[in-house]
């Protein structure tokens, strides 16, 4: 039966049908739904790993032990997993291993738009790119076979537009694939220099075989049509090409590393003009050019963002983008925001009030960087906040550290903040670190992590004791506060910033969107007699408070969940509470 599936669910289905029994991931948009969907199948093991490096290491172990294994992460997650990746590419596999990299051209929910096809070239790893959900399912299945045939992990590279588009899928039957035998094979799996030297030669040999395979694989196909223009493309851009140029000849690549050199040469000879359509980096284009083939590429397009059919029509046929309708009206922007009642809002209100330098991190709280809270000075990558604050201190001295904090979420702290904290203690930093513990991985849609005490399949497990961990690292000054009690938070911050020692302040309050978050027994309202329109409550940037421009009064609206933050910031006691 055919049904609609997002690309991510189709990948999970493909892995299931291919007989994969182990899947690992750290959540990250646009990859999160892959292992989440996989975990719902019977008879498989799936986990949220603490980070992508661990996810790939667990994956490597499962593969060496003989299981077909799926590992999924967003593009920047592959950076975290790059260390095991570059060595596991030498050892090769026992059970097939497919690594999904979900790239994000257009930065819908990411800090950069790196093109992970590059990993395939560096690691001599085959890279497969589907263009819709059916291909996502079919190619995933094939990727497991290829992985075992060529003794290498295979990267399935997708983009946000594939991950989160639903297209029609015909599912198949699950294949029963027995575990491969486990035999000790140190020269294959122990990457000592002597062994690794030989494995490198093996990798090069098998990559040559992959080049031959690329020439004949059904993953690559020629759609010969009008020969005045031939387009080489892959992934979702294939769909934009079909939409914009239904009559063009197309070489659609499903295997984008290694490239089929002969196939491309033959295709180039058959068309008058050769064009490469690929989002982000000129990965295909530069290789084709290096073979002395003339090609139209990035000079005609762009290295930035997502493509679209109308963009291709404009760049290749000179058909201008539609101008639209002239409403002659400015439309106010609608940026994403922290939710009403979000515990992070209290933190950023206090940080702004105290004019602190804030080394930030990745999560919902990164939204604290934008107006009106504007409470963040830097945000580099997962876990970077603590190291960044340490570096600031070592550059400018402890006086600077006395007005600097690092801000990091619970899931991000477990992901890669712990080692930064060890550095602060080990190397005599005096940083103050705020762990915003909302008991979930909120931004990606509320996944559990080691600190929640619940697994991906909602089974209870050991709950990581963050306080005990922080103490074990050697932090003597540990405080736990409610981030929505802002006077207390400010007092604690002042005390800890004044210390010439590292401090950790855990701001503990569950995300308001978590089911079971307690409902308040009171309502908040504005006393119009007392409100003088000073807008202090507006500057916390809460969706539950509106400013009535004509009346010059604040008003609590239907979005309010009575967290009481505006009540605390009002200097005129105009915001009050009443029992429900």
């Amino acid at each position, binding site marked *: 039966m*055919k*049904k*609609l599936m*997002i690309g991510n669910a189709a990948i999970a289905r493909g892995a299931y049908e291919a007989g994969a029994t182990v899947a690992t991931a750290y959540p990250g*948009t*646009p990859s*999160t*739904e892959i292992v989440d969907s996989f975990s719902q199948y019977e008879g498989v093991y799936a986990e949220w790993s603490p980070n992508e490096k661990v996810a790939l290491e667990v994956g490597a172990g499962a593969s060496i032990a003989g299981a077909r294994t799926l590992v999924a992460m967003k593009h920047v997650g592959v950076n975290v997993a790059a260390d095991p990746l570059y060595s596991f590419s030498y050892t090769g596999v026992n059970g097939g291993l497919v690594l999904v990299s979900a790239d994000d051209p257009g930065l*819908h*929910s990411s800090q950069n738009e790196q093109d992970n096809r590059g990993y395939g070239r560096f690691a001599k790893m085959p890279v497969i790119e589907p263009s*819709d959900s059916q291909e996502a399912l079919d190619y995933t299945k094939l990727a497991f076979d290829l992985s075992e045939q060529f003794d290498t992990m295979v990267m399935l590279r997708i983009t946000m*537009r594939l991950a*989160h*588009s*639903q*297209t*029609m899928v015909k599912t198949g039957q699950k294949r029963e694939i027995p575990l491969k035998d486990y035999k000790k094979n140190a020269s294959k799996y122990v990457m000592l220099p002597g062994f690794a030297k030989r494995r490198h030669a093996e990798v090069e040999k098998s990559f040559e075989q992959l080049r031959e395979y690329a020439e004949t694989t059904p993953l690559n196909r020629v759609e010969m049509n009008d020969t005045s223009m031939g387009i080489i493309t892959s992934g*979702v851009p294939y*769909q*934009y090409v*079909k*939409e914009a140029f239904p009559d063009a000849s197309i070489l659609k690549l499903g295997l984008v590393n290694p490239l089929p050199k002969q196939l491309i040469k033959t295709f180039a000879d058959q068309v008058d003009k050769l064009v490469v359509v690929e989002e982000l980096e000129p990965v295909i284009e530069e290789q084709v050019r290096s073979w002395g083939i003339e090609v139209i590429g990035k000079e005609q397009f762009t290295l930035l963002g997502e493509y*679209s*059919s*109308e963009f291709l029509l404009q760049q290749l046929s000179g058909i201008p*983008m*539609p*101008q*639209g*309708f002239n*409403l002659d*009206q*400015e*439309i*106010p*922007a*609608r*940026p*994403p*925001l*922290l*939710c009403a009642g979000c515990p992070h809002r209290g933190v950023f209100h206090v940080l702004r009030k105290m004019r602190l330098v804030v080394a930030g991190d990745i999560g*919902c709280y990164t*939204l604290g960087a934008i*107006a*009106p809270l504007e409470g963040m000075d830097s945000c580099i990558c997962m876990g970077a906040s603590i190291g960044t604050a340490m570096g600031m201190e070592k550059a400018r001295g402890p006086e600077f550290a006395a007005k600097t904090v690092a801000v990091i979420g619970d899931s991000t702290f477990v992901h890669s903040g712990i080692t930064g904290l060890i550095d602060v203690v080990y190397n005599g930093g005096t940083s103050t670190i705020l762990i915003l513990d909302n008991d979930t991985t909120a*931004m*990606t*849609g509320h996944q559990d992590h080691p600190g929640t005490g619940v697994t991906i399949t909602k089974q209870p497990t050991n709950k990581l004791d963050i306080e005990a961990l922080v103490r074990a690292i050697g932090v003597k000054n540990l405080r736990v506060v409610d981030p929505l009690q802002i006077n207390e938070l400010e007092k604690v911050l002042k005390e800890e910033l004044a210390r010439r020692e590292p401090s950790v302040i855990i701001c503990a309050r569950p995300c308001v969107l978590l089911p079971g978050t307690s409902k308040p027994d009171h309502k908040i309202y504005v006393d119009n007699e007392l409100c003088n329109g000073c*807008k202090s409550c*507006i*500057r916390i*940037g809460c*969706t539950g*408070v*509106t*400013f009535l*421009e004509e009346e010059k009064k604040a008003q609590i609206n239907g979005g309010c969940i009575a967290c009481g933050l505006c009540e605390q910031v009002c200097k005129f006691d105009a915001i009050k509470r009443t029992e429900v």
Partner: protein
Amino acid sequence: MQDKVTNIFIVGVGGQGTLLTSRIIAQVAVQMDFDVKVSEIHGMAQRGGSVVSQVRYGKKVYSPIIKKGDADIILAFEKIEAARWLDYLKPDGMVIINNERVNPLPVMSGKEKYPDTIHEKIAGLLPKTVIIDATAIASQCGNVRAANVVLVGILTAAIGIPAEEVEKAITAIVPAQALQVNLAAFREGLAAGA
């Protein structure tokens, strides 16, 4: 079967139910044996930001996203969101606007003005504009959150898809405890759009 691809562009504010709406419309197209593609936005944009989902169906659909100037219908859950995405509409396309105002942050903070008559301006520019108080209708049916299904009712009347197919899709997708309210809201929308 029609060769032409129908493009429906659904816009609103994160949390208003655009995703569910696109899934209902897509399900109807699946039931009618069309090829269907749906593009959704997950992640950061869902935190109260401006959100879009796109449904395309026909004999064969390639791109999952609608070209600028190529949407047959814009289904807007909020007034200024209709205006923000209007460039995606065909010159003779139809806009269905929920007469609902959700203040974005720059308006709440008093930095920018909400253009409160923007829907009338759109109606003046585009003859095929439908403005409806879907939130009020949904409220009468028992739940304001069913406003999206009221809009699906208007859409059903506008593009002439069989109402029973839509009811089947709603039944398949909406959780059982909310089904009666949603079916009632759909029928009200259908009647209002007829």
